[in-house]
């Protein structure tokens, strides 16, 4: 399992062993690992003393938690009101078609995860899409396509380089 240099035990011990810290723990696990694995959930629940069922109840109630690994790149399309009025939904539909997945899913090759988000507060620049942490103001289907193609190319080049090394 990828761990970005953070050991799960180190995360588990960050907070006191009380039920109120369950959400804190799950958030930290998610930001280090990208999702909450069954093992990590068990550890978090053991630490905070809540039943496993309640751990999953929390993880499935809140939208920010994922129980499956996400793709290499995350695409988030804002569907706040301003973005909706300016065609955010059309961007989602186009990406769904292009990547052959539905919003919330990850491509089979684990390259991209497509998510929607309810307003990121950048309404002046609507519609907004965020690829990894890069904002794309006044996004169009064409601009996003270009960006994804560029990402594919740089990743392929990196891979090639890594292969040579």
């Amino acid at each position, binding site marked *: 399992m990828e761990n970005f240099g953070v050991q799960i035990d180190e995360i588990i011990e960050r907070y006191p062993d*009380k*039920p*109120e*810290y*369950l*959400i*804190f723990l*799950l*958030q930290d696990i998610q930001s280090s690992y990208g999702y909450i694995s069954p093992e990590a959930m068990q550890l978090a629940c053991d630490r*905070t003393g*809540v039943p496993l069922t*309640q751990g999953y*109840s*929390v993880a499935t*109630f*809140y*939208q*920010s*938690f994922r129980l499956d690994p996400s793709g290499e790149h995350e695409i988030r399309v804002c*569907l*706040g*009101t*301003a973005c*909706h*009025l300016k*065609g955010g939904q*059309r961007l989602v*539909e*186009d990406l769904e*078609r*292009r990547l052959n997945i539905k919003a919330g899913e990850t491509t089979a090759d684990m390259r991209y995860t497509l998510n929607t*988000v*309810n*307003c*990121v*507060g*950048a*309404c*002046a*620049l*609507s519609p*907004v899409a965020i690829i990894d942490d890069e*904002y794309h*103001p006044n996004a*169009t*289907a*064409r601009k996003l396509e270009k960006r994804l193609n560029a990402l594919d190319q740089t990743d392929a080049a990196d891979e090639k380089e890594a292969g040579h090394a």
Partner: protein
Amino acid sequence: MHNSAIAVKTEPVRLQSAEELNALRDRIIAERDPQRLEVVVCHGTGCLASGSAKVSQAFRDALETAGIQAKVMPGIKTTGCHGLCSRGPLVVIRPQGLFYQRVQPKDVAEIVQRTLIEGQAVDRLLYRNPDTGDLVFTQDDIPFYKLQERVVLRNVGKIDPTDISDTIEAGGYQALAKALTTMTPEQVVAEIEKSGLRGRGGAGFSTGRKWRSALSAIKKKGRPVYVVVNGDEGDPGAFMDCAVMEGDPHAVLEGLIIGAYALGAENGYLYVRAEYPLAIRHLEIAMAQARAYGLLGENILNSGFSFDARINRGAGAFVCGESTALFTSIEGKPGNPRPKYIRSVEEGLWGRPTVLNNVETWANVPPIIARGADWYNQIGVPHSTGTKVFSLVGKVNNVGLVEVPMGLPLSTLVEKIGGGVPNGKPFKAVQTGGPSGGCIPYHLKDTPVDYDSLVAAGSMMGSGGMIVMDDSDCVVDVARYFLHFLEEESCGKCLPCRLGLTRMREILDSFSKGVGSEQDIADLTSLAQAIQDGALCALGASAPNPVLTTIRYFKEEYLAHVQDHRCPAGVCKDLITYAIDPALCTGCMTCARQCPVQCISGKKKQPHVIDAEKCLRCGICKESCKFGAVLIS
């Protein structure tokens, strides 16, 4: 100079009294030359998204390499939101106050040379008054800013939110010092009552009365009592609280500490939406700095009063903006609300008396205490005192954050401050109050924007989202959008919300396909009323508002959908067709290349044709056509 060895920024000193706070402030002011040359770059969410971090970096690099020939090396300051987000990235040059808009890294060299070295303005980056065409040099002369009155946003865009000395220089924590040293907790509560402040989060309940009820609950049940900041700003299209937390985190914190003093709370919580990482970071920095200066934590300003707070990051649930759901979320559980007859001031967080106020409400507290309730309640109108911050978005020229006295006519906000709808058209409606609010049509444009007038018009103040719509926006689609949003966000605990909203959305779905009857519109209305009466919490009870107000004001548009099978705004996909105007089409083939289903045919330099049977109505051809030849009918 006495104490000059104390570096203000790097070595915090625990302040022991109000006098020491004043002395520190005097020292900061004395150390800083008011005429110092400063480049202020907006780092609000909007400007950051349009690339302002690259602009401030370009300034740093340019100044370093140029070895600037100005008398003093200019400082570079990054601040919170300046408000005029649609013109970002924004840069202000002090002390002249020159206001540059849409600044790109490539413009930086010219600004350094022309403005910082030669002292001249770069005209092409200045704002131009759209009515007169005249150049506008400073922020205050831009119509967008002229009509505003900044109480909550007093420091936002002016100070560096990560540097407490900026806050202290601007008068931060003076209200806290005043409360702790010259007022009893009872006097603080009385002052808030007298100010007429009402909750800025949605319902507009009197803040003073809320605090007063908490005091009587404490009398019955004893302490502990908790104070909580609701920073779970979930309404789509609203970013007021985001801007306050990002741009002036100490204002929120100071308000909270004053509230804690008034109620005798030792612990507080700031519940902040997960989608606002910058707000969370700035609040964390602010709290650490306040603790280091003795303004938060044990024995604040040596007054004997101790209070500390912690941040809870939201985890992505709109319903957690509802008070009781927010409490259960802080307790580490799924955010399910509970029935309203149990009052939060008596039985809130951990079952204890709790005062929960919205970010903007808390940020109003310090100026009320510092300047007095009599000053505050002169702003605005009776029953809606003070100012309100709005995020003005949608089909309006000046998209951004505005703060105005309560009671200003809606048209002033949209047309004067917002600069009207692009292309000079009148607006069709303004949606206020987010998913719980309603649409106010153009003919009610003189409605004063205050709590009671908005409710009378069928909408509500809400948290301050203001979405301007024009004739290319479909009200059925907007109503469906909000319902769909709330259907997804419904926690599922009570039936009226869980099933009722789904059924309402299904009816609207069929309207958008041109299926339905006048009877269905009537059924939709009666279902909406049943949900208003029966839902457990405010999320469900107010969910039907966007539908009810659009039916009330735009019935003919609903009828056009169900009777004529037509979407007048050209939005509802199943009721529109795309076609190419042969007179405008140049045959450039761009649309044909981009069509995802290859349904556009035609030879080069010949007008193209769309095959309506195969067309997905994805709109990519319209978006890609430079000649406006793709039409919707």
